[in-house]
């Protein structure tokens, strides 16, 4: 079924009786050409692009819970391509281009909203660092503008320009950045993959990876053994546990990142605003809630919930930067599990086991990478060759010190990125 305004109209007039499931619930087959472990955003997009770009349709996505139940459904929905390091720059650039055509591609309204992202800076030194990043963005072919204080004031008149601990010197504006409706992205990819014949299997937890003579043979699951020629691990938040099934140790420590949403209020923030000194970023959802977050809680965690000190710090940052949001009330807070790597950048690579691939380490930047990650990972799984925009996301870069992409420049401590 194709979705469109006409379809909504027709169904509305006929009692909404014609709607069909967005995806099937098939029983797992005994064997697939490829199996994707993990039905989150990245896993679903990998399946979609395997089917669409590489004609691999005899594949399955195995999800231990429900589709899109991980970080893709618990984030602050920001989409951007404003990275400063070689390796990241080209990857996110490619991903953003996929976002820009996602609705047409998927026939699903993911509400990609290119409302612009402004990264504020608060000193001459920060301005120069942002200039270096902005120039990298333009070198890559993306958009960036350096705003001075008055330029920021024109866009964000509600910031506190006069009585603030860290005065606003200006901002780096990335107009093509914005937000998207997170759940819809997962569902759109799921529906797209399902329509191309991919089996999406929920409530199916992988309990083991079968390896013989250095080659992957399939997986053990709570719904039985499944043979596969290729297996891709795409399980943000559980990467270490699943990789351990194949005897691997990863350069990852899992951390909790909290996010917050307020009660709905009438439109008041039209952009995505990021305040580096306070590790605070905010946007307003189409439903009216202010969606915002801050830094990691900083301790390793799988609990998907945070604690008060970081929550308060985030609120403090909001109050010093834009005290007009003070009377908005936080409705809900939640935490996601972040795969933190030693340079803050992800991994899309083969493993030492033939046929076994891994896509992990997205830190807290995984949402915007959903299309790009799936596209590149599918390319790697299908062809055995690294996709050019993701070619630097190697596992061995830490050991060799080659091609590190340390955007935050904080070094090899996992939680500092």
């Amino acid at each position, binding site marked *: 079924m194709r979705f469109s305004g006409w379809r909504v109209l027709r169904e509305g007039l006929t009692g909404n009786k014609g709607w069909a499931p967005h995806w099937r619930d098939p029983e797992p087959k005994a064997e697939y050409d490829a199996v994707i472990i993990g039905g989150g955003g990245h896993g679903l997009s990998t399946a979609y692009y395997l089917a669409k770009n590489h004609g691999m349709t005899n594949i399955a996505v195995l999800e231990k819970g429900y589709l899109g139940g991980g970080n893709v459904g618990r984030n602050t929905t920001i989409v951007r391509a404003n990275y400063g390091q070689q390796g990241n720059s080209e990857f996110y650039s490619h991903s953003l281009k996929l976002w820009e055509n996602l609705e047409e591609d998927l026939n699903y309204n993911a509400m990609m909203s290119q409302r612009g992202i402004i990264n504020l800076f608060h000193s001459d030194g920060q301005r120069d660092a942002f200039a270096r990043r902005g120039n990298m963005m333009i070198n890559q072919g993306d958009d960036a503008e350096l705003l001075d204080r008055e330029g920021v004031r024109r866009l964000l008149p509600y910031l506190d320009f006069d009585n603030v601990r860290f005065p606003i010197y200006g901002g780096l504006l990335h107009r093509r950045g914005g937000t998207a409706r997170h759940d819809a992205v997962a569902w759109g990819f799921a529906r797209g993959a399902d329509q191309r014949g991919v089996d999406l299997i929920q409530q199916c937890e992988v309990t083991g990876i079968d390896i013989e003579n250095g080659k992957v043979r399939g997986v053990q699951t709570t719904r039985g053994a499944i043979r596969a020629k290729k297996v891709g691990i795409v399980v943000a938040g*559980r990467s270490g546990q699943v990789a351990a099934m194949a005897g691997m140790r990863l350069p990852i420590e899992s951390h909790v990142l909290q996010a917050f949403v307020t009660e709905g209020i009438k439109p008041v923030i039209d952009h995505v605003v990021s305040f580096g000194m306070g590790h605070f970023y905010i946007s307003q959802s189409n439903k009216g809630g202010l969606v915002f977050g801050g830094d990691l809680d900083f301790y390793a965690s799988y609990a998907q919930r945070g*604690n008060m000190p970081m929550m308060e710090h985030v609120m403090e940052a909001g109050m010093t930067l834009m005290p007009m949001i003070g009377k908005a009330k936080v409705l809900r807070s939640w935490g996601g599990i972040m795969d933190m790597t030693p340079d803050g950048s992800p991994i899309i690579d083969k493993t030492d086991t033939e046929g076994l691939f891994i896509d992990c380490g997205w830190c807290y930047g995984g949402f915007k990478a959903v299309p790009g990650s799936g596209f590149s990972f599918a390319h790697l799984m299908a062809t055995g060759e690294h996709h050019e925009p993701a070619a630097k996301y190697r596992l061995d870069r830490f050991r060799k010190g080659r091609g590190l992409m340390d955007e935050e420049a904080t070094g090899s*401590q996992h939680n500092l990125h």
Partner: protein
Amino acid sequence: MRIDCPMCGSRDRREYYYQGGAVMLARPAPDAGEAAWDDYLHLRENPAGETEELWQHDGGCGAWLVVTRDTVSHEISNVALAEDVKRAMRKAS
């Protein structure tokens, strides 16, 4: 979250700095080789369960601590001074 500092007593998490796995206590010899150093700095067991971590009570007494904590329940079962743990490690080796 509260951590029971062996010096200061039970204190709010906000007084503490987290560094990472307590593996950082076991610094390899300079010539231990690439794999040992990769292990030390990058690779992590990262268990969903109990683990030993390094924290510093930087908003309090300044002591570095080895905290045994569950990463799923956040329950803390032991806190020791890092210097004591390190001394014991030396004795044992």
